[in-house]
């Protein structure tokens, strides 16, 4: 399991009700079910991935986060997870609001466009950055709204969303982000993980 998922799993206590939005093949769901006894549901847009989840014995609904979150009642999950997808929505703010409505807390991860390798790529090569977390070319990337860790922190603060924990991830190293180290983490981390609540 990738390091990002380990960090996410560490944020979730045992016996919680969890919704994994864009759960893909269900690896994180399976881990949370087996190790945290989570009552876990998934929402996934790809038919093939839904089939993979069913084959793992996971409860998944085929659907689209932009349209299908509205069927869940307010605060019906302890945690709602959105991994590296916020930037791919037409309206990320709308999705974020839905996640915070449905979940008592939300765990959001974002690929950091402020990561030094991204900056260096653009500076030196002059072409759109391609990294491990941003593997696609400009013409086939699903990402519509790239942001940096700093952008995300500023954004949630401006919307009065509470940040419980911000974690910078760089390969195997996870470290806490605070107000003083925000600039440096925004440079050194390729992924930001946020535990938030509204």
């Amino acid at each position, binding site marked *: 399991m990738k390091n990002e998922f380990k960090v996410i799993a560490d944020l979730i206590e045992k016996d919680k*009700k969890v919704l994994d939005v864009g759960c893909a093949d269900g690896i994180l769901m399976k881990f949370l079910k087996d190790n945290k006894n989570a009552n876990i*549901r998934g929402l996934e847009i790809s*038919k093939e991935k*839904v*089939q993979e989840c*069913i*084959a*793992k*014995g*996971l*409860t*998944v*609904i*085929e*659907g689209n986060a932009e349209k299908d979150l509205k*069927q*869940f*009642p307010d605060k*019906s999950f302890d945690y709602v997870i959105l991994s590296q997808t916020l930037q791919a929505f037409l309206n990320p703010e709308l999705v974020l609001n839905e996640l915070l409505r449905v979940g008592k807390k939300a765990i959001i991860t974002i690929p950091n466009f402020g990561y030094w390798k991204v900056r260096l790529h653009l500076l030196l090569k002059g072409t759109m950055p391609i990294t491990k977390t941003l593997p696609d070319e400009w013409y086939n990337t699903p990402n519509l709204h790239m942001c940096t860790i700093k952008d995300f922190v500023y954004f949630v603060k401006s919307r009065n969303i509470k940040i419980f924990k911000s974690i910078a991830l760089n390969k195997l190293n996870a470290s806490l982000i605070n107000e003083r180290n925000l600039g440096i983490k925004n440079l050194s981390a390729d992924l930001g993980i946020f535990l938030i609540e509204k």
Partner: protein
Amino acid sequence: MNIKTNLKTLIVKNPLKLDCGKTIKDFPIAYETYGSLNSQKDNAILVFHALTGDQYVSGTNPVTKKDGWWSYAVGPGKAIDTNKYFVICSNVIGGCMGSFGPSDIDPKSGNIQGTNFPVITINDMVNAQYNLLDHFGIDKLFSVAGGSMGGMQVLQFISNFPDKSRTVIPIATTSSHSAQNIAFNELGRQAIMADSNWKEGDYSSNNSNPGKGLAVARMAAHITYLSKKGLQEKFGRKLQEREDLKFGFDADFQIESYLRYQGSVFVDRFDANSYLYITRAMDYFDLAKQFNGNLSDAFKLTKAKFFIISFTSDWLYPTQENKDIVIALNSIGADVGFVEIESDKGHDSFLLDVPDFLNALKNFLDKSYEEN
């Protein structure tokens, strides 16, 4: 039609109050089983059939000599694996394969019931079939499953008996019959009743049979079970055993010939009055209405695990109608999974060899069974 001999039949002694107000008792439920019930009695799956189905889910249907209606899904090693599970299916009341229906003799008059048969509902069908649990000494089913009208029965079953099944699999169905579907059913009924041989439903004592009307009903309905793309690919404008158009009203096109054939074989195995009664039951089905318009309330008392399946090309019970059930379940935090299967085979997809569907069904059942 001497088909009612050698059927497995349960005579239900308990009186059953029907939605129409009448009470029936000592009535037959004809059923068939596949696989064997284990000693814990925790591996039983009650399968509900659709409009023109019967209890012969798998293997060879002794009446039609054709494969059972769900042979792709049910059998040894199949999605509903009869090496593992004990599958029970019964003919719905109102049907014509041995269960209490309009072709039964009315003991008072000595004539067939015909249109004296009470109008029955999906709720009545399910309540009648519930007696099979007692018959087999099953406290809790592992699953209830069915497509189309079978799916309606699945939904009604878990609503009536919330703790009587661990899993619930409604397929290509609806919680409330749409205007379009009522319209198609009415077309079928009018075709039957317009046949002069129908004789107000009393055709048996008149030694006649509204076969023409029933065949037209079947032809019209059959079109709704397929998709435009599926029809076009299979038949297109291909001609039936001829080089050119004949400038007449014989079956020039293969699709015409195909529909005529579907109509004619149907008449041999199905009772016209049963077709009227069962389509009526479908039209009356509105689960939300039973709960003052709130569909979620139908499922409030159950802890069962739901898995809902729809098909992309099904325009009779489209994905959105299946999703409405998912939404109602999610709004009360029920355990519900949902998948829409890609298929161009229309509503009939659930009866056919559609691997993505059969795999999903198998995985859901097997994984859920392991979790016990």
